[in-house]
């Protein structure tokens, strides 16, 4: 019988190695961030990681620490990649939205950048999504309009198709993808909730190992075959918030 469920978030990330490239789903302050997996990775302590995500997130120094100041509420039990960054586990951050570094209001993320302890590769959000999708679909490289004639693609190959200049972009290869979904089944089929699908849906299947954090597991067949958002083939492991050994 196929059963991809792990009873522990810690076990699910146990083989994440130092230097791994990790895709992390989520977008902005919404729910849909694999917070439990991120905390397991914090406990695991793997270092020298490359984080690929929309942005470094709000972050906090440790699980349970007060949420950073800001106008927005956070979802319950929330943590994002910023937790790993502030814990010194990340040496490179590939993202679309690092946030502006404001003089006098320097975030821990920008502090690490300024001190040279972390590098950042800034990628337009659509190029990031497409590079992730390319890795999933076996496409080593593709051409895109985005960025042609701007500093963001400096040093990259360009090519003219039908009179317009395009930029050559490469697949974003990764070792692990941590994604958050709503429900999953033992084969690995996933459904999401609303705009929490975002990068989670794009990243599932784009790394060598995809680990899904779900709110709850359902019986095989309960997810309607027309409504599956991420087919089981893209998911290697699942952990359930409801049934895991670890609390939030």
């Amino acid at each position, binding site marked *: 019988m196929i059963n991809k469920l792990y009873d522990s978030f810690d076990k699910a990330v146990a083989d994440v190695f130092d230097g791994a490239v990790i895709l992390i789903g989520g977008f902005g302050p919404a729910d849909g961030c694999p917070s439990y997996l991120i905390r397991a990775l914090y406990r695991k302590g793997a270092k020298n990681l490359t984080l690929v995500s929309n942005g470094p997130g709000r972050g906090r120094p440790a699980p349970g620490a007060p949420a950073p100041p800001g106008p927005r509420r956070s979802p319950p039990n929330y943590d994002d990649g910023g937790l790993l960054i502030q814990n010194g586990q990340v040496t490179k951050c590939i993202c679309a939205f690092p946030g502006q570094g404001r003089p006098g209001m320097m975030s821990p993320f920008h502090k690490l950048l300024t001190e040279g302890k972390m590098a950042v590769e800034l990628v*337009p959000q659509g190029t990031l*999504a497409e590079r992730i999708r390319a890795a999933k679909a076996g496409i080593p490289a593709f051409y895109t309009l985005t960025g042609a*004639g701007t500093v963001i693609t400096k040093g990259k190959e360009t090519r003219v198709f039908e009179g317009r200049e395009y930029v050559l972009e490469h697949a974003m290869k990764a070792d692990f993808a941590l994604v958050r979904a709503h429900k999953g089944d033992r084969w690995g089929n996933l459904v999401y909730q609303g705009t929490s699908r975002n990068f989670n849906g794009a990243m599932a299947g784009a790394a060598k190992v995809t680990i899904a954090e779900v709110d709850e597991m359902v019986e095989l067949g309960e997810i309607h075959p027309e409504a599956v958002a991420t087919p089981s083939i893209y998911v290697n492991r699942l952990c359930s918030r409801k049934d895991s050994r670890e609390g939030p």
Partner: protein
Amino acid sequence: MAERLDEQTMALRVAREFQNGMVVNLGVGTPTLCTNYIPEDREVIFQSENGCLGYGRTAQTEAEQDFNLINASGQFVIGNKGMCFFDHAESFSMIRGGHIDLCVLGGLQVSEKGDLANWLIPGREPGSIGGAMDLAFGAAKLIIVMTHTTRDNEPKILKQCTYALTAPRCVDLVVTDIAVIEVTDRGLVLKETAPGWTVGEVQKLTEPKLIIAPDLKAMAL
């Protein structure tokens, strides 16, 4: 000089460009306010980079707030009949594939050729590019809504952008707190001035020479 328009009024003016059936993407800041000013008898479908098409107005009360329903600016929005969800790859297929009829973004600088700079203030590296670059390249039509000048009253509409470009030659229309300006092959065409503003006053706060539209009018608000 007359008073400048406030954010809400600029959003109202921008929203007059929304035609029935258009798919519209709204950037962070003033653009998001446009959802409140959709012209009556028109139906507009809003697309958000984070994987939603057809969402409604922003949530007004805490009870309306749903952590699974936010727009690309991180604001809570409410659901709408006809709405659907998808992942980021699909979302940017829409954007980069030319399926967005109209995009409204904020701007730091716009050049007379229609170049846009809106993601990096020098000294604030690495900058926040987000989805703006894909939108600037991909949307069929691009409106920039911004104050006409910086806080120091320096022009933001320039002969050439001095900040890093978001995209070259991408802007179609600029709506500011004092004017509406169209980008054409001949140059920038002043189409409307805010109530009480003269052509001369607008020109003085604009670096490139403006072409005055034959049908120049006061902004109808």
